[in-house]
């Protein structure tokens, strides 16, 4: 049999999904020691350390012209918070812009804004508000954060709405697989853990001078799971209707990975 080989260079301190330079790795021990000695919050190798102890993952996912985006994850690589920088015209002087960090809590769909902080200050805000505990989101920390940093400047997102729909779990037969694995989208097929977990269709409609796109997601057997709509001019904010329970949620996604993030949103909530 012909053999193909993959040689993988690794280091025990670093996970396979991350990539770091020799310089990052050399500075790592110093930063962790500093955090331990001073009881401070430090970021090294995409990991937030609090008083020398790993707290959570803080991964930069994107940077375009200085606009950075971050994913806050527990150590099992589940995304709990997505953070992006955004700016709106100043209400009194439209020539100026008010910039802020928008925090999107993935589980609840809640959003908050942190003004006037550099990206380097975000890990401290995450730890100070105790947003992650026991390797998952801390609902009490989230409530405290939302009280301290409410959404003021950006477009308000409607709260989650629920209509009373009675459903039967067996009517939505999901594929068994590792639900923490990465989502892949090939054509219209949605895969996780090398298994086909669903597929989607996409339609667009022009109404009132706006183009509205609709993505409908199905289980492999054809059962409709969810419908996501978004305006073509604003490809980052989806309104998602879930068939199983009649919920309407708002999901902010990275346009470069919109299908993967939309699907992961549904997977994490046991819709897909």
């Amino acid at each position, binding site marked *: 049999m012909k053999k*193909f*080989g*993959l040689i993988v260079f690794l280091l*025990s301190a670093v996970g396979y999904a*991350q990539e*770091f330079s020799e310089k990052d790795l050399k500075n790592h021990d110093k930063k962790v020691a500093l955090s331990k000695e001073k009881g401070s919050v430090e970021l090294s190798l995409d990991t937030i350390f609090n008083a020398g102890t790993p707290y959570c993952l803080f991964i930069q996912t994107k940077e375009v012209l200085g606009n950075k985006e971050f994913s806050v994850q527990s150590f099992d690589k589940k995304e709990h918070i997505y953070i992006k920088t955004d700016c709106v015209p100043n209400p009194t002087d439209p020539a100026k812009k008010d910039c802020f960090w928008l925090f999107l809590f993935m589980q609840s769909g809640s959003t908050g804004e942190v003004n006037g902080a550099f990206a380097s200050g975000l890990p401290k805000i995450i730890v100070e508000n105790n947003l992650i505990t026991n390797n998952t989101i801390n609902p009490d920390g989230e409530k405290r954060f939302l009280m301290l940093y409410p959404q003021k400047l950006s477009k308000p997102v409607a709260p989650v709405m629920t209509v009373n729909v009675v459903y039967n779990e067996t009517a939505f037969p999901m594929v068994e697989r590792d639900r923490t694995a990465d989502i892949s989208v090939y054509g219209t097929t949605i895969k996780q853990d090398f298994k086909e977990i669903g597929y989607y269709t996409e339609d667009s409609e022009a109404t009132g001078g706006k183009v509205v796109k609709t993505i409908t997601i199905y289980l492999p057997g054809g059962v409709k799971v969810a419908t996501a709509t978004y305006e073509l001019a604003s490809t980052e904010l989806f309104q998602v209707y879930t068939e199983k329970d009649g919920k309407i949620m708002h999901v902010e996604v990275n346009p470069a990975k919109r299908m993967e993030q939309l699907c992961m949103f549904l997977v994490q909530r046991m819709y897909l």
Partner: protein
Amino acid sequence: MYKKYNADGFEVFSVSLDKAGDAEKWKAAIIQDGLIWPNHVSDLKGWQCAAGIDYAVKSIPFTVLVDAEGKIIATNVRGADLQNRLAQIFGH
């Protein structure tokens, strides 16, 4: 991917850039990270690892995809990119 393509002749060889004194951490990480293939090597010389120098490794993880004749056909392919390459090679 290892599970999916191993029966087709796909092998994975891990080279650890751990240093002397970190051998136990390296062995533990093999289990913790679920690196289920049998081939794991290290000369425990860190960034002075002979294989790392030969393959000009400047950051990790770093991957080298080698064909059946031993020729390098891609470097630093991971995730979906690697999945697509292997799907092309093995046809599924």
